[in-house]
């Protein structure tokens, strides 16, 4: 597939996001230094370029048809760990996985982790990622003290919170420039284990009530929701919530190496799986099993960090299970007081029988300052759906309308299909974002398939 063309060190290759839909071709270049990154931006050509990390954005945010894509994983140095203050300074291509390997033995943890450790620090800034602790900690960029940004003029700027450039870049999907490095505040931990409480919610009302009443007691909180359950069971869910285990919660044996980080791995998902493996029936059976398998109520269970935060990372290439047609992830947020919208969406998904076994509901805390940052106080639901499901495009468009009408929005890092007209409705600061980009990058050096598709 790849053919060696273009500038030295680059190759033309077909690229998709994690959902494996809409492949396009670009020149892939892997800068290994600031100098190479500056040269790459200066010589990217008429169709521009976009930075890419580990490719976990589901849609087309890190693709750039006919142009350049800069694989930033070559800039992967951890420059300094301030073990007193709890701050790490590292290059943008460092993954959260690597940070955990280095920082956990020192008693520090990343401030925000999404459902995978395989995201880079640059990607975490560009998508302003969130995790199970959003209701107390906010999103990733809240913990960023500063970052270095390579802009369209070839300059490297140090950007600090409280500036327009910071707020445009936090969640700006790489369209303001290339994040080269960042200084991130960390969270102290005594152990690498989690104490986890698990409980079941019988339906959506029960779930929302439990989350509203008790979320503040937990640093981390999330609910897996069975979107195929209908009738009285609509919205039934399993809540898992917890915190970093203190040293004295560990059994004597584990206390000898309390900060060990040993994520396990299963064999990777095979290639070439057929489409339709995840149908309504198979997913329905899985969901029913998963719900009943969970304890009605269990408290204080000790779990490995990787099992609690990143269960799917244990199966490399799990995105292949959807077959060659790929899948889309639909994640939206609606504010507090918009529970009716959430309920209607859940009911419609249940009624339609969308085969989704990775559906997650979470309660967000206050949003951050990023202009295109996704999280906002309220409820967020995320679900994976096979892209080949007939009529799915029109169905999700209808959900978008309901979400937008409720003042909500969908997550750009996961989007692969939003109607462009809705961007400004969902993200009211998008015009400011475009205006800043127009000033900073008049030639449109930073371009992605997402920016073309959504006219960002």
């Amino acid at each position, binding site marked *: *597939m*790849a*053919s060696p063309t273009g500038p030295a060190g680059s190759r*033309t290759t*077909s690229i998709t996001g994690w*959902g494996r*839909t*809409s*492949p*396009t*071709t*670009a020149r892939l270049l892997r800068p290994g230094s600031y100098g190479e990154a500056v040269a790459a931006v200066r010589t990217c050509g008429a*169709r521009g370029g976009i930075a890419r990390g580990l490719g976990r954005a589901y*849609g*087309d945010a890190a693709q*750039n*048809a*006919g*142009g350049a894509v800069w694989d930033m994983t070559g800039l992967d140095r951890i420059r300094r760990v301030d073990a007193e203050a709890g701050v790490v300074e590292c290059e943008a291509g460092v993954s959260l996985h690597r940070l955990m390997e280095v920082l956990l033995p020192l008693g520090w943890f990343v401030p925000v982790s999404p459902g995978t450790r395989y995201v880079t620090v640059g990607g975490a800034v560009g998508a302003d990622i969130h995790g199970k602790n959003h209701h107390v900690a906010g999103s990733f960029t809240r913990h960023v003290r500063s970052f270095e940004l390579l802009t369209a003029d070839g300059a490297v700027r140090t950007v600090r919170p409280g500036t327009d450039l910071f707020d445009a870049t936090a969640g700006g999907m790489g369209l303001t420039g290339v994040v080269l490095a960042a200084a991130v505040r960390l969270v102290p931990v005594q152990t690498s284990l989690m104490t986890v409480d698990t409980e079941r919610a019988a339906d959506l009302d029960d779930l929302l009530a439990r989350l509203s009443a008790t979320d503040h007691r937990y640093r981390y909180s999330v609910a897996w929701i069975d979107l195929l359950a209908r009738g009285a069971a609509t919205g039934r869910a399993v809540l898992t919530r917890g915190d970093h285990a203190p040293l004295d919660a560990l059994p004597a044996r584990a206390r000898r190496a309390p900060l060990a980080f040993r994520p396990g791995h299963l064999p990777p998902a095979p290639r070439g799986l057929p489409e339709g493996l995840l149908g309504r029936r198979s997913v329905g059976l899985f969901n029913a099993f998963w719900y009943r398998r969970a304890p009605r109520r269990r408290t204080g269970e000790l779990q490995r960090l990787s099992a609690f935060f990143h269960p799917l990372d244990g199966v490399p290439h799990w995105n292949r299970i959807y077959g060659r*047609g*790929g899948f*889309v992830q639909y994640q939206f947020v609606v504010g507090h007081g918009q529970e009716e919208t959430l309920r209607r969406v859940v009911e419609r998904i249940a009624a339609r029988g969308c085969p989704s076994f990775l559906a997650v509901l979470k309660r967000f805390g206050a949003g951050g300052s990023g202009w295109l940052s996704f999280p906002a106080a309220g409820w967020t639901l995320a679900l994976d759906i096979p*892209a*080949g499901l007939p009529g*799915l*495009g*029109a169905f999700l468009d209808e959900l978008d309308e309901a979400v937008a009408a409720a003042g909500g929005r969908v997550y750009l890092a996961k989007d*692969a*299909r939003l*109607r*462009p007209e809705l961007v400004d409705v969902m993200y009211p600061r998008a015009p400011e974002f475009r205006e800043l980009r127009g000033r900073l990058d008049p030639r449109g050096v930073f371009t992605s*398939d997402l920016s*073309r*598709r959504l006219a960002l």
Partner: protein
Amino acid sequence: MKDAFGSPQSLLVLGGTSEIALATARRLIARRTRTVWLAGRPSPALEDAAGRLRSLGAEVRTVPFDALDTGGHEEALGKVFAEGDIDVVLLAFGVLGDQERAEAEPAEAVRIAGTNYTGAVSAGLVCARSLRVQGHGSLVVLSSVAGERARRSNFVYGSSKAGLDAFAQGLGDALYGTGVHVMVVRPGFVRTKMTAGLAAAPLATTAEAVAEAVEAGLRRRSEVVWVPGVLRPVMALLRHMPQAIFRKLPV
């Protein structure tokens, strides 16, 4: 850009008055398509087609294009691509012609072959080059089951479609890995103005059905689409039938 379901935002139709193409355009406008270029010989019919698509909410522009004027293809189509990315090119021009006349007047046969084959080779390659530079996009080529095996009753048309079909398949192979997708569509007998007055063949279909199949094919990134789908096994059978028997079939 196309979205995750293969729905294009911009569409270039070569053969802007083709009923199949316009049915496809209507279908795509109902999804994501906002920009449509209709390329064809300037005529009231072309402007009328553009007007009707505009009323559906798309921004529609026409561009003068003549399949037989291969010397002018680069300029005419280059202008379109210079204005912005094209997500889907629908190569839909073609003439059925009059078989009897074509057999009597070779110049008429050359006109049919020149439009359906030579014109398509030229326009197809011009578009392929621009799509390649873009690094994305689909080239949808309207072939025909008539190209699968030439029939006595319209072998001039059939042979031109056979050539087009082989060309498009080869082009698809050439573009594999460039981000550009080529899709060959083989409809059976379609009830349109092109076939008005002809007795419908078995398994006859409609422009709407072809449009629906094109949309599904874009979603699946198919390389060959038969409309209706049952023509695939039927034509596989006919293709391998001995000449002596095929000749006697009432097709």
